[in-house]
């Protein structure tokens, strides 16, 4: 079953065509890594998939329900379906965006209780389990400002997971972290992959992307240059891909 299906996505900022006719889809259980140089449109693609940005033209479906359709060269959003689709994905930001005035626990449980109106006790129970999984069981009452960057990012992953998304997006989740903390986060994502969580990860961690992904996408200048398995990606004959992967090329 296709969780996400994006077709012919176009987006420009001023004179700059950020996305030029991008199409890709994500099956259940897929772990898709998107790599590419800065400014290639990776983050914009994620932001369009999560409705933080609107596309100019294209089609978008979640769980086979078409949320955006293309009519006469313009993207038309269906508000009601968009609202429903909001529930099937989560996003982990590069800079966490935790709520600083909520403690760790409240950051995780507030939306499930307030928005999803789920049973309070059950949500707390699940949240504790998630924190344990993230190795943060002793940080329940801490405020975000008291945590390290790696801990903050783990809380933000827990916050996204607490909403029980069908697909989880990561927008450069380790870019703000030092190598040691980066490993913490990558370990968590790896565990999620092992549990068959459907994920789309925008990242610059090449070897990690190779290890964790079922599929890799290389983007440059608003187009998808290559989309293939990790092994084939690293063995690519494409000049642009080879140039970008550089020394990582040998990894394959």
């Amino acid at each position, binding site marked *: 079953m296709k969780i996400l299906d994006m077709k012919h996505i176009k987006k420009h900022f001023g004179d700059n065509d950020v996305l030029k006719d991008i199409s890709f889809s994500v099956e259940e259980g897929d772990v898709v890594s998107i790599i590419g140089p800065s400014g290639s449109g990776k983050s914009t693609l994620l932001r369009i998939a999560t409705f933080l940005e609107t596309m100019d033209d294209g089609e978008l479906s979640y769980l086979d329900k078409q949320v955006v359709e293309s009519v006469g060269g313009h993207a038309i959003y269906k508000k009601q379906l968009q609202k429903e689709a*909001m529930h099937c994905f989560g996003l982990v*930001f590069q800079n966490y*965006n935790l709520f600083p*005035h909520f403690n760790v626990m409240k950051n995780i449980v507030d939306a499930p209780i307030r928005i999803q109106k789920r049973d309070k006790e059950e949500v707390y129970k699940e949240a504790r389990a998630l924190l344990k999984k993230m190795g943060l069981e002793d940080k329940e009452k801490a405020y975000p*400002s008291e945590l390290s960057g790696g801990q903050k990012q783990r809380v933000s992953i827990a916050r996204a997971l607490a909403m029980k998304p069908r697909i989880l997006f990561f927008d450069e989740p380790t870019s703000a972290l030092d190598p040691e903390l980066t490993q913490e986060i990558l370990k968590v994502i790896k565990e999620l992959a092992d549990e068959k969580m459907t994920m789309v990860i925008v990242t610059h961690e090449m070897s990690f992307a190779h290890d964790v992904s079922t599929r890799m996408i290389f983007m440059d200048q608003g187009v998808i240059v290559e989309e293939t398995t990790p092994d084939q990606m690293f063995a690519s004959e494409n000049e642009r891909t080879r140039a970008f992967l550089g020394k990582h090329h040998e990894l394959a």
Partner: protein
Amino acid sequence: MKKVLKLFVMIMLSFTCLSMFSVDAHAKEKVLTVGFDQECPPFGFVDNDKNFVGFDIDLAREAAKRLGYKLKLQPIDWDSKDMELDSGHIDCIWNAFTINGREDKYTWTKPYLNNSQVFVVRKSDKIKSHDDLKNKIVEVQKDSSAEAALESEEHRELAKSFKSMIKIGSYQTALLELEQGSVDAVAMDYYVARYMIKEKDTLTIVNENISKEQYGIGFKKGNTKLRDEIQKTVDAMKKDGTFNKISDKWFGSDVTTKKMTLPQIMYQLLDGMMKSLKIFFFTLLFSLPLGLFVALARMSKNKVIQNITKFYISIMRGTPLMLQMFVVYFGPFYLFNMPSPARGFAVIFAFVINYAAYFGEIFRSGIASMEKGQYEAAQLLGYSSFQTFFVIILPQVIKRILPSITNEVITLVKDTSLAFAIAYVEMFSQAKVIAANQKSMMPFVAAAIFYYVFNFIVAVLMEHCEKLMDYYD
């Protein structure tokens, strides 16, 4: 966002309704509202027991009794006496009110007292005549008969010979300045002067008059019906000796004021204090939430709402609060010929719309300082824009703007004293009134203590609030 705007409109509407209902109750009962300057002993002032007393007050009381009116004594700010009279807040001015020079401005009774304008000087300066005032600094009360006399054609040479002529709000302050030497002479009514310097050995009255004049009771131009009623009664009082009795009581040689102790002064200030507190609390109660709506309207994507709000803010910040109070209080009458709102209501209304503009800009700066990521995270988790604002954004904004809010709140404590402009007798006006009765600076010291303590408490409370929000960075 639409919900927020709806709420905003509803609050504004209920505010307007409130203003309709709280107009001065000119009930069916016959009421005579007498306007007077309560800092003008012995004609009208406040005694040690907080009653309005004085020569004119006694006359008015007796006249009202004889005519079957319920007497309402309304202290006014002398500067706005014409607006008070025109708009019907008061029926007459009965308060050492000089006819000369104002003959055509009011409908007058016949004169009931002969007065003159004189100079009060320090004994030690040995000023005996107008010639001795050459190159001296002379002070007069604004909009008073003494001012009018010195500015008339007749006294042009005399006024020119002064080093300078200063205009000030009250006799009381003028005499204090004279005593401590910053001015050399005060031009004022003979009777008022005689009463006020009775216990000040250092001051004396120059024998040479500036001008002779007569006191009358002034009514709104054309109100001859009420004038005739009062005239008849005053004539009767003169005939049966009541007038003379009252005159002896206030102008006889044995009239003195008992000195009050500081605790007594404080006790008297209590009324004013309560009114200052009332302005303070109601202003905060309404202007803080209103300020939030102002900020939201100011940041609205709708250009019309945005520009209207911008205009409102620029008016509120660009004109004095005192002027805004005049508009709120006198505006309904002058613009729409409608009755004016109650004084207390007008004060609070003006304060609320003024402070809401300032708070609105503070809220706006706080909201603008919030990171975009907070909105995005909330949107991703499914918070509605309403929930995002009140659950995620506002609590953080409040923490950020608390220091600026504290500043405004402290300014508000001090601004409450502006309410005197429409004769709402709060703390500071009350202090001036007692100072007039007591002829001393003590009430101002007491007032200063009050303001300081009040602000001290406010500062401590706000600091406590800041600490409460210190649980996160």
